């Protein structure tokens, strides 16, 4: 059962309303004449709803940079001979992420867990707490190569404030209508009392049911192994020759890590001003595929070879993160696969391992 029904133009009005209080981040079309189709979508800051393009299929990168940015100051410090003062820095700008697909919502749910597993990372939660998430469901696979259904991430039941389901265009016009589900009180308050949205009638309910059924049919499995069996599969594959065979192509460029919505490893660095003793400590995205990720003083590298790093990433995504956090560690968005200029493909890896086994 849908909670509300809303038309596109009304949704845009409501987003503009939100924009008065929050920064809006959502899919923006960028023209790329060399590509087919000649457009790619990116999550970007916008000022008005009409800058968004909610008809987007997928965004090249996930919205993770708005929750844990590529680089962020942890704290600023001042020091003199007598000691130091450190002031942690938090970004609490009210924000709304609009148009987040189920896979990325799952990834954010993972972050919500891992940044608060044994220790709570206030820098993440400062942003997260100030962020409203308006999801956008996918009626079908957004692009080739995704395996979100395998990872159970093509549907999101929670992790959003409100979720939009594009039911299709009106019978009388050409305007998109969305069914809406509330995920939180904030989402409910945003929509419920606005005159722009309506309670669903019987037709709407039927349309929503049909939407769900069509969606179910539109997604297929890409892996030969069920997600539940990946742990077992990988358990048997630690010594497979596939790691070396595949990794001879690996540049160790880290594109897979950095474009992955569930990767959250980081490095920490200090920086001081030229003249004074003040400065800052900041963190930035890191990745387990990068050559020096496990390097320590004395030049010992605990994962010196691309093959060991590739294996580590795959195990982490498929098994280890979930073991620890209880939330699936890969959402099947295939961004890693698309980002890899060596065309190393995780679906292929899983399937080849399954074949070997």
């Amino acid at each position, binding site marked *: 059962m849908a909670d509300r029904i809303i038309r596109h133009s009304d949704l845009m009005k409501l987003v503009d309303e939100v924009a008065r209080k929050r920064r809006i981040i959502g899919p923006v079309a960028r023209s790329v004449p060399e590509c087919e189709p000649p457009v790619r979508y990116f999550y970007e800051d916008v000022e008005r709803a009409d800058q968004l393009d909610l008809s987007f299929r997928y965004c090249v990168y996930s919205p993770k940079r708005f929750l844990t940015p590529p680089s962020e100051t942890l704290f600023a410090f001042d020091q003199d001979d007598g000691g130091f003062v450190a002031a942690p820095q938090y970004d609490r700008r009210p924000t709304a992420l609009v148009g987040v697909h189920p896979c990325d919502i799952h990834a954010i749910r993972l972050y919500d867990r891992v940044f608060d597993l044994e*220790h709570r990372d206030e820098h993440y939660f400062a942003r997260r707490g100030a962020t409203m998430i308006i999801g956008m469901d996918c009626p079908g696979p957004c692009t080739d190569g995704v395996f979100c259904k395998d990872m159970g991430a093509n549907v999101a039941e929670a992790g959003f404030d409100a979720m939009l389901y594009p039911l299709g265009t009106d019978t009388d016009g050409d305007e998109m209508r969305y069914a809406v589900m509330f995920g939180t009180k904030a989402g409910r308050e945003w929509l419920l009392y606005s005159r722009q949205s309506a309670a669903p009638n019987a037709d709407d309910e039927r349309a929503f049911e049909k939407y769900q059924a069509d969606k179910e049919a539109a997604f297929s499995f890409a892996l030969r192994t069920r997600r539940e069996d990946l742990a077992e599969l990988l358990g048997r594959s630690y010594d497979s020759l596939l790691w070396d065979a595949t990794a001879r192509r690996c540049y160790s460029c880290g594109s897979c890590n950095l474009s992955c919505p569930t990767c959250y490893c980081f490095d920490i660095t200090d920086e001081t001003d030229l003249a004074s003793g003040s400065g800052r400590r900041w963190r930035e995205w890191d990745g387990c595929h990068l050559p020096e990720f496990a390097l320590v003083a004395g030049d010992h590298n605990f994962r010196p070879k691309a093959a060991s790093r590739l294996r580590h990433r795959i195990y982490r995504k498929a098994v280890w993160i979930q073991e620890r956090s209880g939330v699936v560690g890969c959402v099947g968005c295939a961004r890693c696969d698309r980002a890899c200029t060596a065309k190393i493909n995780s679906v292929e890896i899983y399937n080849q391992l399954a074949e070997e086994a």
Partner: protein
Amino acid sequence: MTTVDSSEREARADLYVPMSAQVVDVQQMTDLEVLLRAAFDGGRPLDHCPGQFVQVSVLGVGECPISVCSSPTRPDYFELCVRRVGEVTAHIHRLEKGSVIGIRGPLGRGFDVAELHGKDILIVAGGLGIAPARSLIQYVLDERQQFGAFHLLYGVRSPAELLYRDDLTLWRESPDVNFHVTVDRPDEQWRGRSGVVTTLFRELPQLDPTETMVAIIGPPLMFKFAVLEVLARRIPQNSIYCSLERRMKCGVGICGHCQVNNVYACLDGPVFKYGQLKALREALE
């Protein structure tokens, strides 16, 4: 009562902001190792467990994980033994009495002292491994009546690398510990034993496999050989402790650097049981 303004409160609550501590004593132990004694302002104890570590900050340079090498039974201060190997450790070596450092922690999982109570204890330390071992050694000695027999084996490559020389004299003379030390490559002055640390196992009496707990702390190769000696004496895998070093940044199980297969050295360790490590293919490679 002092009032704490909001930014200070935030700083205290923040995972990444170090607390300031004062260096109250500095002792250059060898060319490479310095022993710092530090204390928090107002005498607050570190409240650690033997085997735990802290993240030491030199602001503007960086942070690095260092084991606490003194025992929590001596709560007025805590000690750090730091080998100069790189950027942060080089700056730690420049600290003087009165310098202020940043401390986060205690972090990680140390030795389960409750489990050790009432048991015979064997500690095998190689090289810099004596640093984390020392907090346990001191603990056992300070709480001597809680433990059964106490054996301590320590090996280094050359006499010049011996750490805690004052302690060594103390331990050698103490009736509380059966202490043996060896060097791989003796020099002219060296009067003690020579050979790798595993040769010291000959000095041990028969160990009771059900009543003995073992801690082996040192470089991976030494660990491998020592563990064989211990297993040969039928000590169960879960009675053997060791400590892992990995690259660490956050120290609290988020940044990913110290992961060893599916465990985090900073959170699930650095002290592990051998039984647990055995399953970790990356741990002993």
